[in-house]
């Protein structure tokens, strides 16, 4: 909403107020503005008269003009096609500035001196949407009665300042000059003067000749008046300038008046060509699939939630949103039917959302003061009488079931201060109420406040407290901390664990990433190993963001590709976040996923690179599981069944025999690089109980170390051997490691040799050689007999 300084000055005297200061004060009562600027940024413009105009001898389009500026006659070379003797024009004098930083200087044009410039409206910075055809092509022609030497901006009423407000959606009342005047009045304690409407009414009452049927609940007020014999022409300059200042394009006096009154009162009006409308007006819900051609010539297909104005034959306007083409006011229109109505905000909102948001609909959506409808109607009649030579007919067509009573709110000073955390005195509160135009009665410490209907947003105590707070100024609030019983702040247990997981993965060398939950069709299917319904958007913005992901891995691959494309090759990343699916209800499951490729660590010039491989990722997983307290409770098991994973280089992760995730190499079909990924279900993992840390004293007795190696088929898993070694070793086997895996000429072609390092120790005594040897030999014989493989060395 734009505030025009000239326009608002009709209702409140702000001549002594600096407009910038006013704008700042508006911000601090809750009305932010986007910009503040002069309506026209040009300076030093005067009205001039072209006394003489001859063609430039050296040019085929330039003219040499002698222009009377009142106090002097100057020679100006002008290239406009419409410049001619006798014309009243806008002259920017030498030294003038025009928008875009143009400064007018004495110049020679094709050898002839030129001391100024005759301007077009475009050169004054008027937006092109406001320009008429003739103003696009040439200089602006002023009316012949324009006073020579007068400041041209003043003459055009362009000497205005605009504040472009970005209002909050509750302040419907500020979508009008009068509403803004009340707000400014409350800030500066200034009175607001409403237009005094005087009308001469003639003829028969409209009530006798018109029939009105309101057949919908969505129209609380519908008022109509008839104005006959209007003369359609251009609006007076002040109306045109004010409309443009408020960003509305002037059309003709009649149409402009409807907009002018809307800007004044915030009440949208609609003018019908009365002769084409007929005299039976119906306000009703649209029929489904009903067609209506709107003002802009478009055929609109309506729904039953839309409201229409209709005559006996057909719908003629889309109520509150846009007029219909068939009853539009045109240049030959003689008689006007004025509609001033209030339609239900929600209906208008749905219609305007589906069809078009107009100046009218944006006001209807937010609500209209029911006590202003009639005034606006009469004001429009008055202006039509004055500026369109119309004859206002007697009477008003009327449907009105709106509640128009002012609102009563009771509140105590104590409550005000309690919520605001201030110590306001009663005089301060009373002064603010008065400035806001709210009346009150004080009874036993309680204010009975009457709030006028124009303030649709003030309905309850808290609204009133806000009014008092914002006018008094929130900068008066002094911060303190709530006085509440002390308590410990907590994280949900899962959250805390997830934080720990993040920090562990960070220390294991992985960067945390943050990606979008919404993915495209193809991505949504990748790495998904469950058969659950996808959660998809009804109206996605784009193809690549329409389905809620069921795996984080595809997003990680996208991050990888992004970084690879930027030559960042060693990538170790992870993300914790949700996946989404639908069962009987919508489900969100917390996951942790990671991706690694390239070199994990190293120093290139020393040729010491640790390349990411299956076992590195396994190390990370194991480290994380240890960290989370699952030592001895997890298993890593080869699994060929994961989608988009290498069938032979992927393993399930089991904790307490439950699958909680997997890791391995991405299938070469999905990525040609050596990329390793993992994904684990955190809800499942973190719901498992973990024992507290309990220190067990380190054994004081010496340990015994032994090595042994077995030759076994390549296909045999080391875990089989280790399980037997552990079982036989029992408590005495305190550590078991693989220290060599060999395949090659010293073993068979389908064989491998794995060497194990064993540590034996007892907590309570020194182990004897015989004891260890006995166990050791038993281990060998058990492995050999149970697995049918051979000892290679010991």
């Amino acid at each position, binding site marked *: 909403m734009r505030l025009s300084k000239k326009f608002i000055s009709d209702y409140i005297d702000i001549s002594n107020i600096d407009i910038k200061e006013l704008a700042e004060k508006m911000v*601090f009562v809750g009305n932010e503005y986007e910009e503040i600027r002069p309506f026209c940024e040009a300076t030093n413009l005067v009205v001039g008269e072209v006394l003489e105009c001859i063609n430039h001898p050296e040019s085929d389009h330039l003219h040499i003009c002698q222009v009377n500026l009142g106090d002097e006659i100057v020679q100006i070379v002008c290239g406009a096609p419409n410049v001619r003797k006798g014309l009243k024009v806008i002259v920017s004098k030498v030294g003038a500035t025009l928008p875009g930083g143009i400064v007018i200087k004495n110049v020679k044009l094709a050898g002839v001196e030129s001391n100024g410039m005759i301007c077009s409206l475009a050169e004054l910075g008027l937006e092109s949407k406001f320009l008429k055809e003739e103003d696009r092509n040439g200089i602006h022609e002023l009316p012949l009665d324009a006073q020579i030497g007068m400041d041209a901006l003043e003459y055009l009423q362009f000497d205005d300042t605009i504040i472009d407000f970005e209002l909050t959606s509750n302040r419907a009342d500020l979508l009008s000059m009068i509403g803004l005047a009340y707000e400014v009045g409350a800030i500066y304690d200034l009175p607001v003067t409403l237009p005094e409407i005087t009308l001469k009414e003639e003829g028969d009452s409209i009530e006798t000749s018109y029939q009105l049927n309101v057949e919908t609940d969505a129209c609380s007020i519908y008022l109509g008046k008839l104005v006959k014999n209007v003369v359609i022409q251009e609006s007076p300059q002040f109306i045109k300038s004010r409309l443009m200042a408020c960003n509305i394009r002037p059309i003709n006096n009649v149409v402009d008046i409807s907009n002018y009154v809307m800007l004044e009162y915030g009440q949208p009006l609609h003018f019908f060509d009365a002769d084409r409308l007929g005299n039976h007006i119906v306000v009703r819900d649209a029929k489904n699939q009903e067609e209506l051609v709107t003002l802009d010539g478009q055929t609109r297909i309506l729904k039953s939630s839309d409201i229409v104005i209709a005559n006996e034959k057909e719908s003629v306007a889309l109520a509150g949103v846009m007029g219909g083409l068939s009853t539009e006011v045109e240049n030959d229109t003689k008689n006007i039917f004025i509609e001033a109505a209030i339609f239900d905000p929600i209906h208008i909102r749905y219609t305007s959302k589906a069809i078009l948001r107009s100046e009218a609909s944006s006001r209807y959506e937010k609500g209209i003061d029911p006590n202003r409808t009639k005034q606006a109607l009469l004001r429009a009649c008055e202006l039509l009488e004055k500026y369109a030579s119309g004859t206002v007919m007697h009477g008003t067509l009327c449907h009105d079931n709106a509640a128009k009573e002012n609102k009563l709110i009771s509140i105590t000073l104590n409550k005000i201060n309690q919520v605001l955390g201030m110590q306001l005195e009663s005089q301060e509160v009373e002064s603010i109420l008065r400035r806001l135009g709210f009346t009150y009665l004080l009874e036993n410490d309680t204010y009975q406040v009457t709030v006028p209907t124009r303030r649709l947003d003030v309905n309850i105590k808290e609204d009133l407290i806000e009014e008092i707070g914002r006018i008094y100024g929130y900068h008066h609030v002094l911060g303190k901390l709530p006085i509440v*019983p002390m308590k410990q702040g*907590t994280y949900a247990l899962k959250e805390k664990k997830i934080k720990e997981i993040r920090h562990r993965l*960070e220390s294991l060398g992985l*960067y945390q990433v943050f990606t*979008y939950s919404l993915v495209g069709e193809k991505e949504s299917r990748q790495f998904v190993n469950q058969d659950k319904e996808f959660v998809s958007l009804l109206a996605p913005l784009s193809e690549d963001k329409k389905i809620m992901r069921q795996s984080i891995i595809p997003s990680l691959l996208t991050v990888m590709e992004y970084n690879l494309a930027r030559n960042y090759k060693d990538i170790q990343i992870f993300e914790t976040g949700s996946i989404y699916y639908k069962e009987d209800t919508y489900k969100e499951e917390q996951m942790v996923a990671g991706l690694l490729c390239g070199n994990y*660590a190293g*120093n290139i010039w020393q040729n010491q690179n640790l390349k990411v491989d299956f076992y590195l990722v396994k190390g990370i997983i194991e480290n994380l599981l240890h960290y989370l307290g699952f030592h001895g409770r997890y298993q890593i098991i080869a699994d060929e069944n994961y989608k988009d994973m290498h069938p032979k280089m992927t393993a399930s992760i089991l904790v307490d025999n439950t699958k909680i995730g997997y890791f391995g190499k991405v299938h070469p079909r999905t990525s040609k690089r050596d990329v390793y990924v993992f994904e684990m279900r955190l809800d499942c993992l973190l719901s498992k109980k973990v024992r507290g840390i309990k220190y067990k004293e380190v054994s004081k007795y010496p340990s015994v170390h032994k090595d042994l190696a077995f030759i076994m088929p390549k296909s045999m898993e080391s875990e089989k051997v280790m399980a037997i070694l552990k079982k036989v070793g029992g408590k005495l086997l305190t550590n078991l490691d693989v220290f060599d895996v060999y395949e090659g000429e010293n073993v068979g072609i389908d064989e491998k040799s794995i060497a194990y390092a064993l540590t034996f120790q007892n907590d309570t005594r020194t182990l004897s050689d015989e004891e260890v040897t006995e166990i050791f030999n038993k281990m060998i014989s058990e492995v050999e007999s149970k697995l049918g493989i051979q000892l290679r060395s010991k």
Partner: protein
Amino acid sequence: MQKKISEIKEQLQNRLNQVNTLNELNDLRVEFLGKKGLITELSSMMKDIPFEEKKTFGSLLNAIKDETNDLINHKKETLEMDELQKKLETESIDVTLPGTKLTVGGIHPLIRVIDEIEEVFVSMGYDVVEGPEIETDLYNFEKLNLPKGHPARDAQDSFYITDEMLLRSQTSPVQARTMDANIEKGPIRVICPGKVYRRDDDDATHSHQFTQIEGLVVDKDISLADLKGTLEILAKKLFGEEREIRFRPSFFPFTEPSIEVDVSCFKCGGVGCPICKETGWIEILGSGMVHPNVLKGCGYDPEKYTGFAFGIGPDRVAMLKYGIQDVRSFYTNDLRFLEDFNRVEGGE
């Protein structure tokens, strides 16, 4: 005899000067102190010495033995030191070659900011709670005093899944969920971080997915002053001790009064600069007193309880704090970008 000893001494000194290696020194030791060494031979003369001179001769002999030992040992040390020095010389390295790249990761800047904010509030006794991202229209809007058709719904064009389900457009539904879940309808102090979604095209300042942290305090006698004091602590923690905050009236359907909060510019300190658009202040969050309709809708008696709520955007905070120009940077995850945050905050 004495003459013999000084001859040996002189001889030893000359020989020692010629010795250059440990091997030569060892030979020299044998020559003088070995079984057939010059000094050893002297002691074999002892038996021929008259009794009364034996004592003097003995001490002379011991003295030369000790002296010889000392000299040889001293020479040994010198030689060893020289040798080590030579060895060290050959071990010189180029200290300017690059160090080994140690593998450490990093926490995403958004999570850093969220963690930081969480810490502030947990230290003040707030609980960190979470709510679903796939939310009902009821919790996302209606319980927050945003009935269907409310014009303020426009500011949050949402991704709907069905007519009644949507991706939450704010973390505020967690407010209502927390109040609903509080069976005793007693005091509440929570913050709720999480992802939110809006139907915005992604550009430098808009993201269809971003993060928010909601704060809610419900208790007896909670006022705007409590809100201000609380947010002052947050602003100082996030943007520095000297920061001040400023309240401006605003409108949110779920708070009344509603307050927009600005922080004094951390770049210019309030005198005006491009970051604060020459105003000295930067808008950081929206807040207010919980609307009585919201309290009522969740079973709280607005006559007994008041509360404040606020919602802060970690994306915006991180952008301001670290000077990030494009919100999409958080979600593209350029590793060079992420690496920049892999250190302690500093700057205090």
